[in-house]
């Protein structure tokens, strides 16, 4: 391990914390400043609260579903589930993606710990472009809605501009200010939410 941590640390963290960005931050800060590692990680993970609010019923109604499902509320399961308009399939999608990524993420951590630096620079394989491209692909259907598009654009701009100014995690949270853009737009007919762009008066896709 380049960070000098015992091998069990990243493994335990992958299973229990299960949130990439905060895990990297915690590994970097753990031995130097443990309080910053916890608080910084929590800040990065604060976005999962609004994710849970938006997903709502997708986890299922049973107590077990809600308490176990909460652990796999992540960027990817949220994005895949929200891209699915049908409520029944939305639940299945959430669980399929959440569990699949939980398994692969932890297998990946084991491989990463075993191989260490032998893998080389992930950027050489373009892997740093894969995550945002995949996430963007999932968001495209939602972005057909005019109000959502306005909020997403404003929020993205705020987050990028704020990145050099604020500690990790806060810029993405600050993007929530972009939702104001959606509120300020004149509300389209709520019944036509999933209808074509043309009906909503948006630009054709």
């Amino acid at each position, binding site marked *: 391990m380049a960070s000098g941590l*015992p091998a069990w640390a990243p493994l335990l*963290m992958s299973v*229990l*914390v299960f949130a990439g960005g905060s895990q990297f931050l915690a590994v970097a800060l753990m*031995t130097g400043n*443990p309080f910053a*590692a*916890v608080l910084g990680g*929590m800040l990065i993970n*604060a976005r*999962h*609260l*609004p*994710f*849970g*609010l*938006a*997903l709502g*019923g997708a*986890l299922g109604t049973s107590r077990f579903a*809600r308490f176990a*499902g*909460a*652990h796999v509320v992540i960027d990817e399961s*949220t*994005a895949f589930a929200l891209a699915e308009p049908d409520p029944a399939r939305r639940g299945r999608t959430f669980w399929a993606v959440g569990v699949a990524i939980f398994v692969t993420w932890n297998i990946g951590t084991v491989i990463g710990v075993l191989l260490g630096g032998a893998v080389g620079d992930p*950027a*050489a394989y*373009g*892997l*740093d*472009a*894969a995550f*945002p*491209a*995949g*996430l*963007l*692909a*999932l*968001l*495209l259907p939602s*972005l057909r*809605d005019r*109000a*959502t598009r306005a*909020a*997403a654009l*404003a929020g*993205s701009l*705020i987050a990028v501009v704020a990145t*050099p100014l604020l500690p990790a995690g806060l*810029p*993405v949270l600050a*993007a*929530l200010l*972009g*939702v104001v853009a959606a509120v300020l737009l004149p*509300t389209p007919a*709520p019944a036509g939410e999933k209808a074509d762009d043309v009906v909503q008066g948006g630009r054709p896709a």
Partner: protein
Amino acid sequence: MTILLVILALAAGTYATRLAGVLLHDRLVLPERLRHLLPIAATTLLAALVATAVFTEAGRLAVGVARPLGVLAGAVLAWRRAPFVVVVVAAAGTAALLRLAGLP
């Protein structure tokens, strides 16, 4: 020992955050107009994650062009309704090839 405590504290805090969102969804009684904003807020957060992953690096604005162009290639394919796997592989492949060609 410190390491274990940090991991347990971060794990507890993160799980509490996730569970709070899920449980609040059941308890919170919101007018329809506000409820309508919840998926918009989630999409906005995810879009901001995309934007910062593309245009920033380690707390700074990123100057490279390989990653933005890779993501752009993926976005165009997604727009043309290409399968998800094709989008992701094309984005990574484009960025990797541009770097191989010497672009930052």
